[in-house]
C-alpha cells in the first residue's frame, strides 16, 4: 500500500477533520502520518480472512424503552457554556444568504 501522503491528501484530511494547518504543520503531518501508516501496515502480515471485525467485546444489542419524557427543561444548562448565545439559542456566524 502506498503510504506517501500527498499535499492533496493532507488538504482533504484538513477538510474532514475541520483543521486549518500552517505550512509547517502540514509538512510535519505528512511526515508523521506516512511513518504511522507504514507502521500500521504491519497488520497486513496477519491473515484475517474470515475474521469478523469486532466492534464490541461483549454481545450488545439495542436497548429499547418507551418514549416518555423524564427530564425537565434543561436549556439553561445547555447554553451555560456557550461562547455566544442569543434568545435561548447558540449564536453562530450567519450561514445563509445575506
Amino acid at each position, binding site marked *: *500500500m502506498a503510504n506517501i501522503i500527498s499535499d492533496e*491528501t493532507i488538504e*482533504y*484530511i*484538513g477538510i*474532514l*477533520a*475541520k*483543521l*486549518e*494547518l500552517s505550512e509547517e*504543520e502540514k509538512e510535519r*503531518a505528512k511526515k*508523521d*502520518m506516512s*511513518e*504511522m*501508516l507504514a*507502521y*500500521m501496515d*504491519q*497488520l*497486513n*502480515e*496477519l491473515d*484475517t480472512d474470515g*475474521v*469478523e*471485525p*469486532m*466492534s*464490541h*467485546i*461483549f454481545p*450488545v444489542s439495542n*436497548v429499547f424503552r418507551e418514549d416518555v419524557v423524564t427530564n425537565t427543561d434543561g436549556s439553561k*444548562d*445547555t447554553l*451555560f*457554556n*456557550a*461562547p*455566544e448565545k442569543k434568545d435561548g439559542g*447558540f449564536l*453562530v*456566524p*450567519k*450561514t445563509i444568504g445575506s
Partner: protein
Amino acid sequence: MNLMKMTAIELGRKIKKREVSVTEAVTAALDAAERKEPQLNSFVTIDRDGARKQAGIVQKRLDEGEIDNPLAGVPVAVKDNMCTKGLLTTCSSKILYNFIPTYTAQAVLSLEQAGAVVIGKTNMDEFAMGSTTETSAFGETKNPWNLSHVPGGSSGGSCAAVAAGECTYALGSDTGGSIRQPSSFCGVTGLKPTYGTVSRYGLIAYGSSLDQIGPVAKDIADCAAILETIASYDKKDSTSIRRDDYKFTEALIDDVKGMKIGIPGDYFGEGLDEDVKNAVLKAAERLKEKGAIVEEFDLSLVPYAIPAYYIIACAEASSNLARFDGVKYGYRAKEYEGLHNMYKKSRSEGFGAEAKRRIMLGSFVLSSGYYDAYYLKALRTKALIKQAFDRAFEKYDVILGPTAPATAPKLGESLSDPIQMYLGDIYTISVNLAGLPAVSLPCGKDRAGLPIGLQLIGDCFQEKKIIRAAYAFEQTRNYAYSPFAEV
C-alpha cells in the same frame, strides 16, 4: 500523625472513630497540595473553598449516621476529564479552558454520595492522548520520585498526586494504559476494571470502546474499596454492564495456593529493561513460593496490538472530538470569516499537536478508500487478540508481566518520536482491546531509584482474581505501600 501517609481505608477508619475530623483530613490534603504544587503541578484546579464546604457537609452526614462507607470523609482528586458540576473541567486542553460542567460524572457522583470529598482536578495528557502528561496545555507534571522525570500518562497528575501525598487516592481513566503506566512510573497502585464496569457518563470521551475509569491508590485494598463504590450499572451509559458481584473487597485474601499464573514469554523479549525484568520475575517467584502455579506461555500477536489500538483509538477520537467546534462550549476563535472558518480556526487554535495528530490519523483511517484497509483490519486484529486472551484464560487465572518496558523517562525525551512513545504501551494496550481488567502495583525500583510496576491481568469480570494475587504479593513486599518520595 501524618494523615497523608495513611491509606484511604486507614484514614476512613480514623474519621469514623472521630479521631480525625473530615475537615482535618481535607485540610491536610489541601495544605500538602499547596506546598508541593509549585514543584509537581499534579493539579489543574484545586478547589479549596468547595472542598472545605463539602467537608462540613460530610461530617454532618456522618454525625447523623447517614453514611457508612469506608471512604467517607477521605479526600480524593479527580482526573480533569471527568465532569464535576460547577468545577472547571478542561481535559488539559485549551479548547476547554473555561468549561464548567452543569452535571457530575456518575463515578464521581457515586464517590460523593459515599462521602468522599473532591479536592481538585488532576493534570493529564490533553484529552488523555499521551504517555507522559507532557501534552497538557497547562504544563507538564513532574514525577515525585525524581523531578526531572515524567510521571507517565495520561493519568500522570492523579498518580503523582497520590504518590506525593497531595490526596489520599484519585480517579484516573485508562484507554490504552493511562491508569496503569503512570501508576507504574509513580510507584502507586492503579486498577483498570473490565470494560463497562464503571459508568462512562460524564467522562469526556477519547476512545469510547476502550475508555474505563478506575482507582489510583496506595495499595490494592484501597483500590478494591474504591472500585466497590464506583462500579455500578448505569442506564445513562449504553455500554454499562450489570454485574452479579460487586463485592471486590471480599477478594483481599492472602492465599494464592493453586492459583494458575501465566507469564507471557513474548512480554520479556527485546526492549524490556533489565531491572524491570528482574523485579517482575522476582515478584512471580514470590507468588510461586506462596503456592501459585507459575508457568511461561506464548500469548502471541503482541506487536500487533499497538497498530490496531492506534487505528481504533484515533478513529474514535476523530469522531468524539468533532463536538469541539466553538459553538456549544469551550474556546471560540476571536477572528474568523463565516461558520466553517470559525469551526476550523477554533479547533486549530484550541487543540494541541498530539490531539491534532490523532484526529487527522483517525479521519484518514475512516475515510472512503481506507476504511477497509485500516479500520476494519484493526477490528479484525482486535478479534484475534481477544481470542488469544480467551485461550490463555482457559489455562490461567491471572497473566503476570511488566506494566511498561522501562521506568519513567526524563522530561522532554518522548514527544519528538511518536512511534517510539507508542511502543511504551506494548504491555498495557492489548488489555483495553480485549476489555480485560488489570492492575499495576509497585514491585521494586530500578538502579536509579525509580519505581517498577508489576501488571496482573485477569479475564473479563475476574477482578477478584487479580485483586487476590495483588494482595498476596503485597504481603511479601518489604516496603508495603510506601511510595512516598521526598518532595
